[in-house]
């Protein structure tokens, strides 16, 4: 009997230390703090702080390996007079607008096609996503080769197989041809993401809505216009926001295929910022270019998100 009591007190003694620790781990504020620490810590140090630092650098003449002094708006003033910067701004806007329209038109079409009852649907869906998962730079290298001035397969097909042209297409040699080639590559890469996300949206639409519309005598276009489109808006607005954001700040495709050439005519703001900032060493000026993307980004995000998501609020599903 006493034996047992002794054992009891021993085990209690032994467990008191861990118990305190365990109690601490069960104390909610501490636990919340501990759980959030790694994520919030990493994000604050490597995201929030650099964002602020970037804003600061834009107002300095920092170079790689040497701290800079505050020079006010000088970076922005010199960019204002820089025709290459304005070309890059124009290119970025044109690139984003055209590529987004292309991606969404083709992506929506592909999503509608995949929403039919077709054999091997999941296999096709898996294949369609491949351009999106393969490293962009590597598929860009493939496009670089497809756009080769001498050995382009597209030129070969148009010239030697279909006899539609007599000369090779110079895809990357002139500014406009290069811009359009880049946009085509960007659309190619963006279609899968748009299509698969919109397909997910389409699949949430209840078939009974279509049946009801059909009973009311709605034609296919009317069914699309009055059932599919409004039901798809919430998903569409999110996908559009992301798409615009990532197309606007695109770097890889342009860097891999043209590096901003011919003669700086296809630079996007991101590639110009890189060229000035890292190989050129002008961190301050590069940061100023990167910072000038922010207002565009905020505007584009607000427009695509609030412009299209309004319908969702009206339905009272804001907390979904």
């Amino acid at each position, binding site marked *: 009997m006493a034996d047992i009591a002794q054992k009891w007190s021993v085990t209690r003694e032994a467990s008191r230390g861990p118990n305190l620790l365990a109690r601490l781990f069960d104390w909610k504020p501490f636990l919340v703090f501990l*759980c959030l620490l790694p994520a919030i810590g990493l994000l604050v140090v*490597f995201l929030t702080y650099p*964002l602020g630092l970037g804003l600061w*650098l834009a107002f300095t003449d920092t170079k790689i390996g040497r701290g800079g002094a505050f020079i006010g708006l000088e970076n922005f003033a010199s960019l204002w007079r820089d025709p290459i910067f304005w070309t890059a701004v124009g290119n970025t806007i044109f690139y984003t607008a055209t590529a987004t329209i292309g991606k969404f038109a083709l992506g929506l079409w592909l999503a509608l096609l995949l929403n039919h009852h077709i054999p091997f649907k999941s296999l096709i869906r898996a294949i369609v996503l491949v351009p999106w998962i393969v490293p962009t730079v590597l598929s860009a290298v493939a496009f670089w080769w497809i756009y080769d001035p001498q*050995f382009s397969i597209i030129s*070969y097909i148009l010239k030697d197989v279909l006899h539609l042209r007599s000369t090779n297409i110079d895809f990357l040699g002139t500014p406009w041809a290069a811009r359009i080639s880049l946009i085509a590559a960007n659309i190619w890469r963006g279609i899968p993401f748009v299509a698969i996300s919109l397909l*997910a949206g389409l699949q949430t639409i209840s078939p009974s809505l279509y049946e009801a519309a059909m009973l009311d005598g709605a034609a296919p276009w009317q069914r699309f216009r009055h059932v599919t489109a409004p039901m798809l808006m919430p998903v569409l607005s999110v996908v559009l926001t992301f798409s615009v954001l990532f197309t606007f700040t695109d770097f890889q495709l342009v*860097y891999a295929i043209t590096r901003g050439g011919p003669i700086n005519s296809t630079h996007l703001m991101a590639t110009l910022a890189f060229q000035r900032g*890292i190989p050129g060493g002008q961190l301050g000026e590069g940061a100023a270019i990167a910072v000038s*993307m922010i207002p565009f980004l905020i505007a584009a995000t607000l427009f695509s998100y609030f412009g299209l998501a309004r319908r969702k609020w009206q339905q009272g599903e804001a907390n979904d």
Partner: protein
Amino acid sequence: MTDAALSTKEPAAPERLGVISWESGPRKLVTVYLPLACFVIVLLFPFYWMTITTFKPNNELYNYKDFNPLFVHSPTLANVRKLFFETDYPQWLWTTMLIAVAATALSIFASVLAAYAIQRLRFRGANWVGLAIYLAYLVPPSILFIPLAAMVVKLGLFDSPLALILTYPTFLIPFCTWLLIGYFKSIPYELEECALIDGASRLQILRKITLPLAIPGLISAGIFAFTLSWNEFIYALAFIQSSEKKTLPVAVLTQLVQGDDYQWGALMAGALFGSIPVALFYSFFVDYYVSSLTGAVKE
């Protein structure tokens, strides 16, 4: 007369029968299968082209008159051999793998804890923390790489894989956290309440109940994070200088292109073998992939 009446009526009849029947037959061939085939061909063509260029000998590669460029006539492994034995390619593959695995592990660890805290500990302001993490995803790397480069230099991490392992979580954590919040939401809270009543501590609950149930979510987040780190380009380009420490996408673009004489065969081989690991990875987990992509969008 009756024939004509019948044939005019016919197109209207299937309309009434329901969703499936109005689009069957040859019409479906033109409106569905044909465009779908075009999409699949266009989306896959660059990979086909990449693959056959890899296995073409040089005389075929630059002679379209005698050899149809769409096929390989006498396949060769010369380009592959050149890539693996005359360049640092195996080293780049290894480095990329290492960085991707480390960044993924770090991000998953941080995201699981954060998602658990936000979704299950129900503290005041949890929604705001969740929103802040979501907003972090909207900050594109293109505006962060310059200040990050300055930071990396100052911390003495320039040209070190650690610079990438620490910076990749900035875009991985927001994504994984949101994915996992969604996943934790689907696990019944009652299970945790039972465990709490039985005297389990919060950490025990996380380890023994929530995590095992969330394994599919963890796999989704893991493969997404791995692919995103494998594909990352701009940070790797800006923070790494020496050839043997470069990640694969950067190395293919900067080390395999020498001067104006592009070795297209080797370049395409580099692109092909850089894509295969993610493609394989993807094919094993394709369902997780699709569900996490669409789940994240619907959130």
